[in-house]
């Protein structure tokens, strides 16, 4: 419970990312695409509902480019 409530945000490793774009369909509220089809990831702390779609996007990324990051205090 405590671990789940630790504030995290979704991030992308832009070197690993190839702009395949599955993530934007699985987490459309968190991820939009830029003019070249690469993901722009919202940097805010994830709510419970956010977390669900973020986890789906992370699991679906063929390049393993998405990850959760502890928010700096």
């Amino acid at each position, binding site marked *: 419970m405590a671990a789940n409530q630790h504030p995290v945000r979704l991030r992308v490793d*832009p070197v690993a990312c190839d*702009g395949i774009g599955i993530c934007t369909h699985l987490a459309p509220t968190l991820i939009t695409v830029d003019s070249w089809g*690469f993901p722009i990831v919202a940097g805010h702390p994830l709510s419970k509902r956010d977390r669900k779609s973020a986890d789906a996007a992370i699991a679906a990324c063929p390049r393993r480019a998405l990850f959760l990051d502890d928010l700096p205090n």
Partner: protein
Amino acid sequence: MSTHVPSFTEPADRPTAPAWLLPTIIRFPRAGSEGAQRTATESLFEHTEVWGAFPADAGREQLVDELVRCKLTGRGGGHFPVARKWRGVMATAGGGYAVANGAEGEPLSAKDAALLQTRPHLVLDGLQLAAIATRAEHSVIWLHAGATATRASLAKAIAERRVAGLPGPHIQLITGPDRYLTGESSAVVNALSGGPPLPTFRRKHSSESGVNGAPTLLHNVETLARIAAIARGLDPTGHVERGGIPSALFTVLTPTGRTVTEIRPDTTLGQLVNSHVAETPQAVLLGGYGGNWVPWAEFQAIPASEPAAQLQGRSTGAGIVAPLPTDGCGIAETGRILEYLADSSARQCGPCLFGLRAVADLVSALARGELGRADRKRLERYRAEIDGRGGCHHPDGAMRLLASMFTTFAVEVDLHLRRGPCRADTGPRLIPVPSA
């Protein structure tokens, strides 16, 4: 006037403290060569005469306290607090790497080459002090492979130190390709770990997990030279209120070359340019290709001291100052620089690989007077989309340059949009840009 009393390591064996980091003003060709014109390399004997012996007794805690007190910041351009980097590595078990980054990426910059070619031992002192304080097992100096004059100076200095038996790990001289991003800090760590010399995206900071996963302390060579002075009880941070060596190190682009020079931090960047360039410029590129265009009227008043400059919302970056004469076109110059930066992309991140090229094309079109109103909006959208979205800060620097073009050359941008190219657009280019 100065009330600073060295808190440790009295420089007793030296009658007068050096006033500057460099022995003299040092000149380089305008572009294309890293070799200084007519300079002598200080031998270990001469170095000891000027600066005193290697301060082997500088305690690690005392030294890091002194770095805090001096507020020393990184001179690769980022101005990150040095003490904070040290504390990060000192919190680990050690056993890692201390790296001197001498791969000066910005083609206009020559201050690091100047230091390494005239006073290599001051830099190596700083490297070894950092290695000892952070319990590093390896000391590395990282250079461009084509930096032949710098390499020769360092190879000799390293050999002299080995003969003299100075403390610290064996110093390895390692080189990477002559590219813009070879000196980017994550690229250095990647290369020294056996990977390609390209920037990487790090989920952990290199102080924890750097070269080969070991704790790594990486500093620009000027930063290390200043650490070596501070360890001797001198304070070269550029704070006028302090003693020691108050100086700020700059590379100034002149009509005939690049001049590496130091000025007192209580002077202004206007005085710096006026003492090296006869003609009053229209604007100045401050901080190199990834820096900012600043209108001359504002530039003139920027303090040479970094903390004072930051109070005005400016940064001296890595100390690169490139004046643009009145007969030049800031838009055409920006377009050429952006093309170089696009060519220099490591081609790893989408926004950098596709975005920098798109932006460079649009700015070059603007310089030719071929940019429409819709394109102007597209350029602004691209800028917002690219900024902050690379694995390294390469695209951020390019977008900083672009943003400063719009503010500094606002009138010229408008004229190019409405009336087409200016006369200077077909004239000679005034800021040298190499082919990538």
